[in-house]
């Protein structure tokens, strides 16, 4: 980065949020959310639609005023110092928000001029992405493919050399290959010292972040490094494979000691109620139970939990309007 940082800036957190709360009518979108982000961190908010990710981002980028609590971004209060703060923030909303009738170049030129700069002056900063778009510089933004739109939006969010970048669900609805490429691109910006705040509904993307916050129904379920979060799972998780996965799932739900059982790709992830019991003993019992139910060969192996396992465990019982809390996927 060529922008000189204020002396001591590194000592100061990039974000400090304290008790952020936001209601829309009867709906509590955010409920007492507190966390801090260090400068240069890639920090991810992981959670499904409706968890409150977008509301939180809108407060942090000064577009929405919280009902309670406070947020300091780059040491500036997000409510009282919004004009000053906006100069240093890059924001890419989840919904495509550029001008569809302007060309690629016109959009970029517009965003540069709003911040009192030019494409030429900032070329070095945006080159890694813009070089992939230059062949289409005359094309209207509306006529770009999804991936190209996203790259243009990222260019526009970076053209004024922000110190902190907010990306709201940049990979939602994007295929697995493009998602990887996007994260590889982000890693290049991270290397320049940029603080990146990103949200995603894809749990597997947590491992791309230095730290993550799991968010659900307006509350943070956990804030830590992906590794510490998976280590916090607190009980033995088993991967179970069977010839007939669907029948195995139904059978394991009938096992009296089942705490949870969920399909995960080609396996089932199982936890037992009896925390004290040895994994070998549990595995044996499961195999015997399966064969008593005519299920055939069952492979049961202890495994390291994923972020998604932790998320589901902390989400608690499935949220059904009528039904009582159910065991595993109902």
């Amino acid at each position: 980065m060529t922008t000189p940082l204020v002396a001591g800036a590194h000592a100061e957190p990039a974000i400090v949020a304290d008790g952020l709360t936001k209601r829309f009518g009867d709906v509590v979108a955010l409920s007492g959310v507190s966390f801090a982000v260090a400068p240069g961190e890639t920090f991810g908010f992981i959670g499904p639609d409706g968890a409150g990710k977008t509301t939180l981002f809108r407060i942090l980028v000064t577009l929405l005023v919280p009902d309670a609590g406070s947020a300091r971004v780059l040491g500036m209060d997000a409510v009282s110092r919004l004009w000053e703060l906006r100069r240093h923030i890059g924001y890419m909303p989840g919904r495509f928000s550029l001008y569809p009738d302007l060309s690629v170049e016109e959009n970029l030129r517009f965003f540069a001029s709003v911040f009192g700069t030019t494409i030429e002056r900032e070329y070095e900063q945006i080159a890694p992405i813009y070089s992939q778009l230059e062949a289409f510089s005359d094309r209207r933004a509306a006529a770009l493919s999804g991936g190209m739109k996203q790259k243009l939006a990222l260019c526009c969010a970076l053209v004024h050399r922000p110190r902190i970048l907010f990306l709201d669900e940049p990979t939602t609805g994007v295929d697995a290959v493009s998602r990887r490429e996007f994260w590889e691109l982000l890693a290049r910006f991270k290397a320049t010292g940029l603080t990146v705040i990103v949200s995603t509904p894809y749990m597997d993307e947590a491992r791309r972040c230095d730290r993550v916050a799991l968010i659900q129904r307006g509350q943070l379920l956990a804030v830590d490094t992906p590794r510490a979060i998976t280590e916090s799972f607190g009980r033995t998780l088993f991967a179970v494979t069977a010839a007939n996965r669907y029948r195995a799932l139904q059978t394991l739900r009938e096992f009296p000691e089942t705490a949870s059982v969920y399909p995960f790709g080609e396996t089932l992830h199982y936890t037992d109620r009896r925390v004290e019991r040895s994994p070998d003993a549990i595995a044996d019992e499961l195999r015997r139970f399966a064969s008593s139910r005519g299920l055939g060969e069952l492979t049961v192996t202890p495994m390291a939990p994923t972020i998604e396992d932790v998320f589901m465990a902390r989400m608690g019982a499935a949220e059904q309007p009528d039904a009582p809390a159910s065991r595993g996927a109902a």
Partner: protein
Amino acid sequence: MTDATIRATKLTRRFGSFVAVDGITFEVRSGEVFGFLGANGAGKTTVIRMLTGLLAPSAGQASVAGHDVYRESEAIKRDIGYMSQRFSLYDDLSPLENIRLYGGIYDIERTELRRRTDTMLERLGLTRVQNDSVGSLPLGWKQKLALSVALLHRPRIVFLDEPTSGVDPITRRQFWELIYEASHAGTTVLVTTHYMDEAEYCDRISIMVAGRIAAIGTPADLKQAAGAESIDELFVQLARPASDQAAAGAR
């Protein structure tokens, strides 16, 4: 001869000089859960639009539930269900009103419709909110309701276009249980997703790359043939070269 509910032979669709779907041949068997995967822009949506009778092919043949896509697109629409993340239900209507609307469109007899409605709402645990607007429901509940509504007229095939996008991990799995139930009841399911773990839940999958089917088979067979650990890895193996090519072409 198999009991295929979807049969496509050299199915092709061009838009001007662009070949969106390039002569694909595949079958989906009756009662199968078929994962229809591919990168963005690979041609999945174009294929689905042809198979649901919304878009005429440029060349090739296809039949869906025994009806020809060129001549019998109206008959196809009666025999299929469809839902996507973008459009599924009317947000301003209640669950009950949505069900009645779809029941009316598919001409389901009144007492029968009432019976199916009660069963569905109870099964989904939505009886208490049956008169609330659908827009006020959490996405996961809405998507489960949308799938049930798409199955209301007992279609032979249901097309699900990214039905679980953005849905929380527990509800996502409940949604898949509804898919399995439909499949066990004999409904053929064609589903697209960007969650690669969900690809593993399918009986068979196909992976489209640049308008063609680059791989088709059971998840286990495909992984084994490619020496891939997961469908995610296989997907990247197949789709990445095309994506690099597109990026190179753009320069």
